[in-house]
């Protein structure tokens, strides 16, 4: 029975009886008419709706009756705060043990626990209030404007009640988070927006909190990027490319079997290394095709050198575009999107693709069927560097480097810059990221090369381990750069401890760098390039420090041995040939020390930025590194114009600068090249708990080590201290 009329006397009698336990009704329970007071006007609405349902149903039991009247009377006379506008705020996070107690992220692997956190210091939530938490299929800004109805993909919203105790007391496990679907069709994942419906009206309205109210999804549930994609794949064992150098005309083709029913697919070209075969990359070709790409792997003229290698890549790219009507009996005719090309190269082929890009950039080669702007992404796997900065330069291309730390060929030996790969990456002025893979050797990235493993016993990850890394990160890079799947970016910088492709073994150490190109999304404090003094930053601010043995110089090991020497302060850095210009700083400590950069007023408003970040690595074989014998931690301190300082520790985020791969050779000691990784701390973490720091007026950034700030001893190599946007 739905209709239960009661006399007014009965109603009043009920209201004066024991209080009923009801959940708070949004931000201002009892204020039915929205005038910010609980008064006679609200009582009038209860009475006018008596026996029915609607907004006067304060306890949400489906009836307007005595119970609602009881609630109203209990709140009688309450003056409510004015409604807040909707607030875009990060909610999805993984919990941290220590302050700031939550690390706000977007991407989770499907099947894992998802958590949200609400910071009372940054929101207007009321302790004791209950709100409804919604997981909604992701909408764009325009879609939210057109439709504010909240529909939870889990079937029902999740009530959450705010507690005292700061952010640590307001973390909530997303009910059913493990079962959220990551099936986004050809997207690796699926996006969701997260809404806290403060007034519990089932609509995204004033006072509500949202993560993803813009075009970005607040939460991205990703499938395992090492896993085969949703599409069946057809392989053409080989075809002959017309116009390619004699002897190097064969290529293998992979494409989605149902390509005829698909929109044109981006093109991926794989260029093998010296002594390798074009048939050795089936794992990668089939993987990428299953995610919606047309992939070729071509014979590569690598023996003469890099120039010839680049020529075959350039030729084969033109050939497949030109021959699409005939190759595979025309199955891919009209289905190649030549405006979105990825080049992947391994070894000499890895340098070859960069050389090919450089030749087009320099206008010394004009390809047919495509141009420089069509090459959206370069991925070099363990590339050589024969030609140097003037000829092997990725310029502003989106560039990814994958490199195995146990490579016995392109080994990273300090004796020859040909065996360096990081210098290629350092030349990039576009979006670049690197993944340095402990335990992987040169030919682990193909099926059939020699075993060139050089590293500690028991650390080899073999072909399966390295190829899982390649599949995951190349797919992530392509989806990010080619398809605009922004959530895949987190794979490129977050540590494996918080975001790991399921197919990558948990014990595999991946050292990641991400360096965004100079743009309005970057406020560089010091890139150590334009000012060579250790007391002046590249942005013009004063630099002070208490650290020991500070050196700012070319990022280059100068004595051809990894044996530590004070005469070679950048020992272990193999990121700049003699012709390159990449500079970094190095210093060490044995007690509480710091280095501080003054932030000019012109850069001090970072309220629109998301991160403070730095690239940092441990100095290999340095006595302090040997003593530390593990991950190094530090803190970053921000100070505003009012003198408020807030410190966030890398260790609180579960971040540490990893110990160099424990490889021997090229001198005495243990530890291979200096491995830099990007550590990003979210600026919001500096406001966590209501610190009051004004991000619009930051005057200094300080890196602290030792004492309570981080590891007691160590030696750091640092570069690119900057504020960045998501």
């Amino acid at each position, binding site marked *: 029975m739905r209709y239960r009329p009661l006399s007014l006397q009965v109603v009043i009698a009920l209201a004066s009886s024991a209080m009923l336990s009801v959940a708070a009704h949004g931000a201002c329970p009892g204020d039915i008419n929205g005038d910010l007071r609980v008064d006679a006007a609200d009582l009038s609405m209860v009475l006018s709706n008596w026996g029915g349902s609607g907004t006067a149903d304060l306890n949400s039991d489906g009836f307007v009756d005595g119970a609602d009247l009881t609630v109203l009377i209990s709140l009688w006379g309450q003056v409510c705060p004015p409604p807040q506008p909707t607030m875009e705020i990060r909610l999805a996070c993984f919990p941290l043990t220590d302050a700031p107690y939550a690390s706000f992220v977007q991407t989770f692997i499907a099947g894992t626990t998802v958590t949200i956190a609400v910071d009372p210091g940054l929101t207007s939530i009321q302790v004791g209030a209950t709100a409804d938490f919604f997981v909604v299929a992701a909408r764009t800004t325009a879609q939210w404007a057109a439709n504010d109805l909240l529909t939870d993909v889990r079937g029902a919203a999740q009530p959450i009640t705010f507690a005292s105790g700061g952010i640590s007391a307001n973390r909530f496990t997303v009910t059913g988070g493990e079962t959220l679907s990551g099936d986004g069709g050809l997207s690796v994942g699926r996006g969701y927006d997260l809404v806290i419906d403060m007034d519990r009206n089932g609509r995204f309205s004033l006072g509500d909190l949202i993560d993803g109210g813009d075009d970005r999804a607040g939460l991205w549930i990703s499938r395992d990027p090492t896993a085969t994609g949703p599409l069946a794949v057809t392989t053409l*064992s*080989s*075809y*002959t490319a017309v116009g390619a*150098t*004699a*002897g190097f005309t*064969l290529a293998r083709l992979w494409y989605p079997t149902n390509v005829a029913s698909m929109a044109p697919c981006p093109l991926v070209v794989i260029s093998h*290394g*010296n*002594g*390798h*075969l*074009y*048939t*050795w990359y*089936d794992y990668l070709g089939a993987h990428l095709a299953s995610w919606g790409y047309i992939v070729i792997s071509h*014979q590569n*003229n690598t*023996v*003469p*050198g*890099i*120039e*010839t290698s680049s020529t075959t890549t350039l030729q084969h790219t033109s050939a497949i575009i030109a021959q699409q009507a005939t190759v595979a009996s025309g199955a891919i005719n009209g289905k190649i999107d030549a405006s979105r090309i990825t080049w992947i190269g391994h*070894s*000499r082929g890895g340098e070859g693709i960069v050389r090919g890009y450089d030749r087009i950039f320099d206008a010394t080669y004009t390809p047919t069927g495509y141009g420089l702007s069509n090459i959206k992404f370069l991925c070099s796997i*363990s590339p*050589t560097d*024969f030609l140097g900065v003037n000829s092997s330069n990725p310029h502003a291309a989106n560039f990814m480097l994958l490199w195995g730390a146990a490579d*016995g*060929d*392109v080994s990273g030996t300090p004796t*020859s810059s*040909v*065996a360096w790969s990081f210098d290629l990456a350092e030349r990039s002025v576009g979006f670049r990221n690197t993944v340095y893979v402990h335990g992987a*050797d*040169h*030919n682990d990235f193909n*099926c*059939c*090369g*020699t*075993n*060139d*493993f050089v590293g500690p*016993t028991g650390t*080899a990850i*073999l072909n399966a381990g390295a190829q899982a890394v390649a599949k995951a990160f190349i797919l992530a890079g392509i989806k990010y750069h080619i398809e605009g799947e922004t959530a895949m970016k987190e794979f490129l910088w977050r540590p494996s401890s918080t975001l790991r492709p399921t197919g990558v073994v948990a014990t595999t150490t991946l050292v990641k760098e991400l360096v965004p190109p100079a743009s309005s999304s970057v406020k560089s404090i010091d890139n150590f390039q334009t000012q060579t003094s250790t007391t002046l930053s590249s942005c013009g601010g004063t630099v002070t420090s208490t650290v020991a043995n500070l050196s700012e110089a070319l990022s280059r090991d100068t004595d051809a041995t990894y044996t530590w020497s004070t005469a070679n302060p950048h020992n272990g850095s193999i990121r700049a040939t003699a012709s390159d210009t990449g500079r970094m700083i190095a210093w060490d400590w044995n007690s509480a020390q710091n280095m501080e950069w003054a932030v000019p007023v012109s850069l001090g408003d970072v309220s629109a930025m998301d991160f403070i970040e730095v690239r940092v690595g441990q100095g290999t074989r340095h006595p302090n590194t040997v003593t530390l014998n593990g991950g190094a931690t530090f803190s970053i301190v921000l100070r505003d114009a009012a003198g408020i300082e807030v410190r966030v520790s890398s260790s609180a985020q579960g971040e540490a600068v990893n110990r160099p791969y424990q490889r021997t050779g090229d001198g005495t000691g243990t530890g291979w090249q200096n491995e830099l990784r990007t550590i990003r701390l979210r600026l919001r973490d500096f406001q966590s708990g209501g610190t009051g720091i004004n991000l619009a007026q930051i005057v200094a950034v300080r890196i602290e080590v030792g004492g309570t700030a981080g590891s007691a001893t160590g030696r750091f190599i640092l570069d690119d201290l900057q504020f960045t946007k998501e």
Partner: protein
Amino acid sequence: MSSEIIQMKNETMAPKKLNNFLTANMIACCIAGTSAIAFAQVANPAQNNPAQNNPGPALPALPATPSIDTVPMIVSLQPVTIKESYATDFRSEHQQVSSGWLMVIRGDSRILAPRALAEPLLLASGTGADGSVWIESVEWFNHGFISGYRVCFIPSTAQEKSGADRTTQGLRVWFGSPKLPESVDAKALQSELKEADRAGIVAAIAVKVEVSAPKVLANRDELVTTANALITRWAPDESQDGASTVPAVPANK
């Protein structure tokens, strides 16, 4: 042409048989009456590195070159004429090539192993009709690490002073310093020649060479096709036959 080569054996050996012969005898043969040179034993490239539990053949360390210890053995040598000349990629000058010798060598696997870093140049030198010494950067079509056999082509670059009348008289084939062939010019080759002399590399070694009238090929495509046939015969693991659906892989990888 046939008189230029002294043949140690009067039969052409199949690869497997030749392997056995080399292993059993470890004797190198010589050309044109020069002294015999010891032939380095080919390491077993398929040997695993059990300590790393990686099933691939181990990448051997590269020995110093040039050295008489690493001089390869010539297995066959076929003069070739190419009607439509092409520009060689194995010289920085990219000279036009219209003739040369198609060659199969057996070499030290430590050198034949493919590497990303610079590999030893494969060089050939001989005497021209005018008595001058020529030297050339040899093109190769496969590495030969697993099989031990490398299929090569000694281009005769017409622009060279002695190029038009090159002969195999005094032929030497050896591995020079590690460099990218595309970076090598005439000056660098002369330097390599001096290094070879200093290393005592004075003659080629051969088991059996087939010398006949020049084979006439239409263009480089035909040269590649001919070379591929030799690869299929001598180094089948590196065959890149387009009809194959199975990658050529070491059996144990």
